């Protein structure tokens, strides 16, 4: 603690800059979160109050006069949203299951075996699945309708199972698993599928979680595809159903906001569940 005359001045300068930076960080953070808070609070207040408190600016914008669940009740009981949520769940879970199996198999083949054209196949698969799906959704929807897949669960699920980043992630992870593990398993007489599903899959918890999330979120937030492929309301998925409630009753913001909160919370909860599930499967990697 030797004090030089310059030191106190400098600490004070650092402190002012920290104060300014903190103030900016708080303001920016508040600015980003405020619309989300408005949605959250709006979902728990009477619908009419959302409209009356919009303008002029006052604290009532985010302070409700009463807390009510009527928006959620309307949404889940009276409209078809509950059914759409269930459809979305089925589509997401099926897509994750099929997509993970497919991606893991492809990633395993591309990580473990040496064969001519391996890198080319890898590049083609990843590049073509990285072209945003929306770009070719319209012609694909026409094909699917021609094949009789319009208004079917299969039609909703299939496009979501293929995810280039999922294959990319899993392959990167598999490349890090020592070959000696695989050789040991082969000496023990394990078949290739067994090595993949009981050895590699078990060692790859985090990569499987990431890939599952990618597939899940892709399907959960899908809007254009269900809009194109499904016309039957009974089969419709939650985002399109939510957009439908927006169009139907002009300015039923309470119900819209409640739907938005439900659509937001489900992936958050699912992420948590997935992480627990795959976290348990992972037994850690590393060769001693």
């Amino acid at each position, binding site marked *: 603690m030797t004090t030089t005359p310059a030191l106190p001045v400098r600490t004070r300068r650092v402190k002012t800059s*920290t104060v300014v930076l903190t103030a900016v*960080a708080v303001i920016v*953070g*508040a600015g*980003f*979160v405020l*619309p*989300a808070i*408005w*949605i959250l609070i709006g979902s728990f207040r009477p619908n009419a109050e959302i409209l009356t408190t919009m*303008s*002029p*600016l006052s604290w009532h*914008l985010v302070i409700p006069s009463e807390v009510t669940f009527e928006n959620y009740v309307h949404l889940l009981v009276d409209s078809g949203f509950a059914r759409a949520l269930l459809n979305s769940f089925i589509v997401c879970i099926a897509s994750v299951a099929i997509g993970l199996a497919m*991606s893991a*198999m*492809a990633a395993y*083949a591309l990580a473990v*075996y*040496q*064969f001519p054209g391996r890198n080319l*196949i890898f590049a083609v*698969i990843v*590049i*073509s699945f*990285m*072209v*945003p799906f*929306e*770009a*070719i959704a319209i*012609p*694909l929807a*026409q*094909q699917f309708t021609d094949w009789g897949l319009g208004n079917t669960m299969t039609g909703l699920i*299939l496009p979501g*199972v*293929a995810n280039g980043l999922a294959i990319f992630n899993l392959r990167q992870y598999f490349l*890090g698993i*020592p*070959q*000696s593990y695989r050789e040991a398993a082969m000496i023990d007489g394990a078949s290739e599928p067994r090595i993949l599903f009981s050895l590699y899959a078990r060692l790859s918890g985090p990569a499987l979680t990431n890939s599952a999330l990618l597939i899940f979120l892709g399907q*959960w*937030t899908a*809007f*254009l595809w269900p*809009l*194109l492929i499904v016309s039957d309301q009974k089969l419709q998925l939650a*985002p*399109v159903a939510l957009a439908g409630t927006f169009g139907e009753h002009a300015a039923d*913001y309470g119900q*819209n*906001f409640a*739907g*938005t*909160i439900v*659509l*937001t919370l489900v*992936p*958050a909860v699912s992420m948590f569940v997935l992480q627990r599930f795959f976290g348990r499967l992972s037994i850690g990697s590393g060769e001693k």
Partner: protein
Amino acid sequence: MASSTVTSEPVVAKRRRAGRRPEAGRQRPGRRQELMWAAIFLSPAIVALVVLRVVPTVGAVVQSLYKAFPGGIIPATFHGLGNYESLFADPNFVSTIVRTLVFNAIINPFQIVLALLLAVLFTQKIPAVGVWRTLVFIPITVPIVGSSIAWGAALNPEGPVNALISALGGNPQPFLTSPDQALAGIIMLASWIGIGYWMLFLISGLQAIPEELYDAAKIDRAGPIRTFFSITIPMLKRPLLFVLVADTVANFVLFVPVQLLTQGGPQNSTTLLMFDAYRTTYGYGSRNLGAAEVVILTVIMIFFVLLQFRLLREERTPR
């Protein structure tokens, strides 16, 4: 070969090669079996690739070369590049292309500059920095249908954004109802989600920059601005380029807010290529013209995705 062993994970690489060597002796029968398993494991992904990507792309290309007649009784006839010619002869379509390009030339730099500034801000040593950072992430979790509806309400001429502007002494704005401001409104709501999302990538890039470089800059008495341009930006080049390309890809197919809030209007001011392809195909029922638009969009996409893939590949090699 020897030079390529200097990778970020030399130990793993060496081990893998060492592990493979004994296999070489008993190669013949095992090798054929390996090829068989590779084919079996790859086939679902390849079938998906063909059915979900190749078939629709080829289908769109073929359809874009035909011309159908209203009513569908007379079979479609081969039209060559006629659909493309009539698209580019249509001033509305040309302005859609120009608008889409201008939209991307604005929204991508806008989102990335702000994402970069915020990433730098949220990696400074300030109290409770994680909390403020999380607040910026929260919009990412809101699905775009929900955020479009909410921003539609917020940008209502009698909505809270105008209330805020009035409270600050400004004049209320028409936002989505004005041809001059609607696209800016779409940019705003897309950026509410996008900035936080791309910031995630840049923060992890910033955290990978060695602390010693900043210490060295401090010793050289470089100020914060000089440090930013001489150390942060060059060291962040790869994540920045990757984010720029990935953001561009995402914004070229931005669809939900346009479909939900403006339907391309007012006066076509928010008609972007993706929405136009949708409207031409389903709204106007011109499958062939719509297919030509899809092909144009896909060509642009493939260009950017190839660029992105190059950047992803480089990401794996050591700096």
